[in-house]
């Protein structure tokens, strides 16, 4: 096995090293870093290094820490985080920071996950909005680029973005990271510019140390196969028969009724036999991670190099993620005042995706005959899997980021210039054999990249007057050049199943010298069934800022920042946005409580300011415009007319006019930090207000001018809430220790304004109403069932109607809110929340001698979801036998999830669609408490030292993750929902994982 091989090699290297060479040279290092193995969330850094190179960075850190008092930021030691066998940054940060909410729509390794800091800045109507609500992730000063959502423009379904759809933050190896900081308010985020409008997650990689040091971190574990209840055709048939018994006389609702054959034939073993597909679908899966780092050099020049490999096998559907990472840092100080440093971080991600039919059909833009779903029997399901194996679905992502930095240190004056590059490319190569698609093969090749190049200059000047007045001046300028591009080609009906790529004729000339008319035409697939697409967005951002910090006697802190940001995606008339931020802090401890022994630290801080919000799309910069897309429902990518490109107004995107200003965010933060009882109790509370202004929103309007909507500026959304972090060293003996920390966020979201002063707008199944939260569902209230015709209210001879359709027995009793005897949109109410009112984590660490135990809980309160999977099962009449997405049945159709008995038996044939999802029948409380991690570890450092093995640290541990969930939700897992709060049943389960690991440093 590969893991064992890797471990063996590294171990061999280390042990030989440790026992020989390193044994002598390490004497001075012992005192360097002594890390406690229990969590100390509020220890901001270790500052005991002597190294001259380190000193520079320490200085910066001190500076940072000082001004941190102005800012609400929380730092975490990745050391503890990295014990969780996570794939992505999001998983690692989940429940760890007050105010950072992580959404995990699927347990499939390496899929995209969403993060929201302090609520959502806008209604999440599409993946585009989700993209524009994500916080910025900064690695060593590089603002990381992610995949642009423009690919959704030509996608009929937005289940997955075209291409690899791999989570770019799965490329971060926590073992290379020295600190993770979540910056939530403007005093901390302002210097990162408009990209930081949704908050910033700052990752700082491990800096090289001069002394030779080797680290080795690894774990191996097992993700446990879940227990599921499977059902077969007989079961489903019985389920449906109840409706036939109730609403039909002869087993047919109408003469042309077409009962599915796969259910009606009870002797058919394919469907009515044993339902054991889960043996092939679910599995116990091995996960491991391994990271090897080496650092060394001198005071003047040093480096750190690390290699890592992570493999995370999913428990369902053969999913898998494999990551190889390499990171290289160099610091050089050729002159006393000159620092040159550079970093390269390269990652390769290979992802094995799920085999959902829906995702495949959406990818190939073709729905085959769906009258016979995948059978629940293992033998038949195995056939299908075998067909799948004839093709491939390769998803490869390469992410390279790095910087080169020159720093001039002229005492009080410092100047740094940095060149950052972040390049993120994805390849997806797909081939589906003929047998998978009724005799048609499919090949697709995608290549896309996102690239950010950034030149950043900063000058600072420090001034101290009379030893009590500290000034810090900072000027910064940066230019960022972003390019997002993809090219995608796909083709149907290849000549056979052996040629799996769409080869092109590569001869420009015929043998006789004439031009080859078929040059670059496909050879193995028909030219007429080959489709090619590409798209590109360039976005340049130029920023300037000036910042002044002032502190008086370390008691009063004042800071002011002024920014000017110019974006190429802003309209020419309002290209630049100017924004100020001011913040202040007061050290009450120093001022008033210097002698107080109970209160060790008390700081009050406040910040207020404004920052611009960027447009992700360059369309808005153009004003009224013309586009080449003239598609229609089901065929979005019509290539012009009569083989000529056409240009029309963007009717399906929406009208875009002139005069669109920058959108921006006003943010106010008031907080306090306190350290009590010998700093054993830390308390940090922040109240915040975020006002998003001038957001763009598509208002359904101008239909008589052909537009689907009018995209206008002027939406305003407020988020207010508090972040609370408490940590306590409850017991602190030499032998035994117990520390506990709790973080939680309470957030309230409200729509404050719509463009044109509108009070409300309806967009598809969502109502945006001024004064109401944007994350609410818009639902009919279900009061039961009309058992007989006589129960249906009649007013003036007219029976109760739903949108003009008279209600009948067997229809749902929807509440007539406005009492006009008509059920329509006016009777829908805003109900529930797709985002939690309260979310957070609770962490406990116990230490006994060299043992330590960690228990980590994660919770969401006041969150609701729509159980769409259940609605779909009951709405079988509208989801059977057609060649469309609604009729797709996955293999998990044969899994029983949720409680069927909760729901009334409506007449499923009724044209009011009784089991529609826009009613509170399927709204469920999705609050939960999860035991996310239990880990137990033993520190072997001392034991090893006794044996004269020179080790800085040697720690072994075992963890159990996702141990249990307590929730009132009856479906699969309350976490597994889309950004819109609908549980479609498509999320793969988040596995329970057990690991064994080791962390070693010498």
């Amino acid at each position: 096995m590969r893991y064992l091989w890797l471990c063996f090699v590294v171990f061999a290297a280390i042990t030989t090293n440790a026992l020989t060479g390193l044994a002598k040279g390490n004497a001075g290092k012992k005192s360097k870093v002594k890390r406690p193995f229990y969590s100390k969330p509020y220890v901001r850094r270790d500052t005991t290094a002597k190294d001259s190179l380190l000193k520079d960075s320490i200085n910066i850190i001190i500076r940072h820490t000082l001004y941190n008092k102005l800012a609400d930021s929380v730092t975490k030691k990745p050391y503890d985080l990295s014990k969780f066998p996570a794939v992505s940054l999001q998983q690692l940060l989940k429940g760890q920071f007050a105010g950072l909410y992580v959404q995990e729509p699927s347990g499939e390794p390496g899929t995209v996950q969403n993060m929201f800091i302090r609520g959502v800045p806008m209604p999440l109507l599409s993946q585009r909005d989700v993209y524009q609500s994500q916080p910025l992730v900064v690695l060593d000063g590089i603002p990381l680029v992610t995949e642009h959502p423009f690919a959704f423009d030509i996608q009929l379904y937005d289940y997955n973005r075209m291409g690899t759809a791999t989570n770019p933050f799965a490329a971060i190896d926590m073992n290379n990271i020295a600190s993770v900081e979540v910056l939530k308010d403007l005093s901390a985020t302002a210097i990162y510019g408009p990209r930081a409008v949704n908050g910033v997650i700052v990752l700082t990689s491990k800096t090289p140390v001069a002394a030779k040091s080797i680290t080795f971190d690894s774990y191996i574990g097992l993700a446990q196969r879940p227990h599921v209840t499977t059902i077969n055709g007989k079961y489903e048939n019985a389920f449906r028969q109840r409706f036939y018994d109730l609403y039909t006389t002869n087993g047919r609702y109408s003469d042309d009724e077409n009962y599915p054959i796969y259910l009606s034939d009870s002797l058919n073993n394919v469907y009515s036999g044993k339902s054991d597909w889960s043996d092939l679908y679910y599995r116990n899966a091995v996960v491991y991670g391994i990271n090897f780092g080496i650092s060394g050099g001198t005071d003047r020049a040093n480096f750190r190099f690390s290699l890592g490999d992570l493999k995370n096998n999913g428990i369902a559907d053969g999913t898998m993620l494999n990551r190889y990472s390499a990171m290289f840092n160099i610091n050089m100080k050729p002159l006393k005042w000159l620092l040159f440093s550079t970093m390269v971080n390269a990652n390769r991600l290979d992802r094995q995706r799920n085999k959902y039919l829906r995702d495949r059909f959406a990818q190939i833009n073709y729905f085959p005959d769906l009258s016979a779903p995948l059978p629940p029997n293992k033998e038949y399901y195995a056939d299908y899997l075998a067909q799948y194996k004839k093709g491939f679905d390769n998803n490869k992502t390469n992410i390279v980021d790095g910087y080169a930095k020159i720093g001039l240190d002229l005492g009080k004056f410092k100047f740094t210039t940095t060149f950052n590059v972040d390049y993120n490319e994805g390849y997806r190569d797909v081939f589906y054999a003929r047998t998978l698609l009724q005799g048609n093969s499919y090949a697709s090749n995608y290549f896309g990249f996102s690239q950010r190049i950034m030149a950043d200059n900063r000058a600072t000047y420090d001034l101290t007057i009379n030893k009590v007045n500290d000034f810090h001046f900072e000027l910064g300028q940066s230019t960022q050049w972003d390019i997002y591009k993809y090219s995608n080609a796909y083709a149907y009906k290849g000549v056979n199943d052996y040629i799996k790529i769409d080869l092109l004729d590569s001869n420009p000339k015929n043998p006789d010298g004439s031009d080859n008319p078929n040059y670059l035409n496909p050879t193995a697939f028909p030219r007429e069934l080959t489709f090619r697409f590409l798209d590109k967005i360039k976005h340049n951002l130029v920023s300037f800022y000036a910042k002044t910090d002032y502190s008086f006697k370390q008691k009063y802190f004042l800071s002011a920042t002024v920014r000017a940001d110019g974006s190429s995606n802003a309209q020419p008339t309002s290209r630049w946005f100017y924004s100020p931020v001011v913040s202040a802090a007061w050290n009450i401890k120093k001022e008033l409580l210097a002698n107080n022994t109970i209160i060790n630290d008390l700081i009050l801080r406040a910040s207020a300011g404004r920052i611009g919000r960027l447009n992700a799309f360059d369309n808005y910069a153009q004003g009224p415009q013309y586009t080449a897309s003239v598609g229609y429902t089901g065929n979005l990518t019509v290539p012009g007319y009569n083989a000529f490109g056409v240009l029309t107004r963007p009717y399906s995107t929406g009208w875009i006019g002139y005069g669109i200003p920058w959108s921006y965010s006003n943010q106010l933060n008031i907080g306090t930090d306190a350290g009590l009882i010998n700093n054993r109790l830390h308390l940090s509370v922040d109240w915040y207000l975020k006002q998003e202004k001038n957001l763009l929103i598509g208002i359904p309007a101008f239909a008589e001018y052909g537009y689907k909507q009018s995209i206008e500026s002027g939406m305003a959304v407020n988020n207010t809430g508090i972040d609370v972090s408490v940590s306590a060293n409850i017991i602190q003996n030499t032998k035994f220790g117990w520390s506990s920390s709790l973080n939680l966020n309470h957030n309230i979201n409200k729509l404050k304004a719509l463009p044109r002063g509108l009070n409300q707008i309806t967009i598809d199944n969502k109502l945006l109403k001024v004064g109401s939260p944007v994350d609410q569902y818009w639902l009919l209230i279900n009061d039961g069932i009309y058992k007989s015709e006589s129960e249906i209210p009649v007013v003036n001879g007219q029976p109760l109607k739903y949108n003009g359709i008279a209600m009948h027995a067997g229809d749902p009793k929807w509440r007539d809110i406005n009492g006009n005897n008509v059920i329509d949109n006016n009777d829908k109410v805003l109900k529930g929340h797709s985002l939690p009112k309260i979310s957070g984590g609770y962490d406990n660490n116990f230490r006994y001698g060299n043992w330590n135990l960690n228990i980590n809980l994660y919770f969401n309160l006041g969150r609701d979801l729509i159980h769409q999977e259940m609605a779909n099962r009951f709405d079988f009449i509208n989801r059977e036998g057609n060649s469309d997405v609604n009729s797709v049945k996955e293999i998990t159709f044969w899994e029983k999830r949720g409680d069927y008995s909760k729901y009334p038996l409506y007449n499923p044939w009724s044209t009011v669609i009784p089991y529609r999802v826009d009613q509170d029948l399927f709204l469920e409380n999705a609050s939960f408490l999860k035991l996310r991690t239990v880990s137990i570890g033993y520190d072997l450092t001392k034991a090893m030292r006794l044996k004269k093995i020179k080790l800085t640290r040697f720690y072994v541990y075992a963890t159990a993750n996702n141990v249990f969930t307590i929730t009132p939700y009856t479906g699969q897992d309350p976490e597994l929902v889309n950004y819109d709060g609908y549980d479609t049943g498509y999320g793969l389960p988040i596995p329970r994982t057990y690991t064994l690991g080791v962390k070693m440093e010498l």
Partner: protein
Amino acid sequence: MKNDHKNHVVKMKKTLCIVLILFTAAITSCNKTLDIDSTRVVGEKNMWNKLEDARAGLLGVYALTRAALSDNDGHWLYGDVRTGEFISPNRQDLKAISTNQLNASYPTVDALSDWTRFYAIINAANIFLERIGDVKAADKRYTENYLIVDVAQVRFLRAFTYFYMVRIWGDVPFITASHDGKFENQARESGSKILVWAQQEMLKAAADLPFVYSNNDVQQPGNYYNEDATRWGGALATKNSAYAVLAHLAAWQGNYTDVATYAKFVEDNYSKSGINFQSTEDLTKSNGFFFNKNTSQMFGFNSDWGHVDGSVTGHLEELTLAEPVVNKKVPDIYMPKDTILKIFDMPKDERFSIDTLGQPRTERYFTNINGKYPIFSKVKVILGGVSDPTFRYFTSALIFTRIEDVVLLRAEALAVLGDVNGAVNEVFNIMTRRGMTDLTIDSNQDIIDVIFKERHRELMGEGHRWYDLVRYNKIKQNNPAFLKLINSGGIYWPVSRKLIAQNNLLTQNPFWK
């Protein structure tokens, strides 16, 4: 010491100066950095400057028209499915449409009651007509003749769109300017007024439209946009297209004198556009009349295989075809055998007829007649016009009208106007072409019935039947239920609730309140 400090300050100032100079230099260069034209859309300043912009704008109007008619297979759902003569085994939305439950809350039904996509055509046409002068002024290659011919096409398409909408909704908002950026909500205007306007527009357009493109028509000399006649044949509206649609419009108005005139014009001139009557074989074979584009497609919108224009949706085949024609178990719609036999009751009908043993003589219109689902396979343009059942990718053209339709319209007009012999001649002309012989009319047979039955057979699946039924019942006045539907506005579609919510000047059709 002091001096030292001073020096330091001077040094500092110098440094600051340099930094400031660098910053100003950066600012001036950065406006350039920020000025980038989008590569994915075209801004107003880069449009309407060149001949190619005019072509892109003109063909854009065509493309939008094709999109509007193809969307959700609307042309056939409005025209064929609504009559209830087809049955949908699985699709609840189609069941609702075929039983006239147009309030039912299915996405397709909602989408079909939404006229936004038709107004996209109108708006694109309005912008074209307002801005095409800019191209004329800016690009010498764009000659006066281009201007005349292009404007005529756009005016025709705009009028056609209004006609199409009036047939669906009755009264619709009437907008003939782009109102770019200053959009105002409009109330619905009387459909009959709009039709009067549309008729005038089409007549004006017809005067400027050539019979043929790139083929030495006096009204369009030279190669149109540098492409030859094969490229344009069947793709663009001609003089004959305009008169054929005019005939339809006049028939919908009940103005049969005009119908006779317009139809006569087409009958006299169709060959100038390269239009031919289709043999039954050509009409129904998969690489025949409906395949790609050809000059016989009097007015239609092609989805050319060679142009990679085909698709899995937006074609009649998506609804009608299933096993054994394509690999789909159950068709979205089918016609029961009884209905088929009632409609195709003429012996020797090449489209469909049964022999004395009850076996079909031909499978041109219907396949699998004795199976559970007889497949309506008149139009079956699969892939590049082949009979490969494995891949449901269709390239059939959406035909609004063809010569046979116009001849039958003229028959209808003559019959209404009392020229029974003329009408009989016209309808027998078509019936003879379909293989029927020994045609006679006996005294107890109404020629109107004969004509509409033939229309039903000939134009089945071409989006005409519903409107034919309306005209038929207006003429016959003998079906109280249908007349009630006509008089109460039940022949129209409801206006989408979404639209009414957006525009408070709109009212719902009373029948659907």
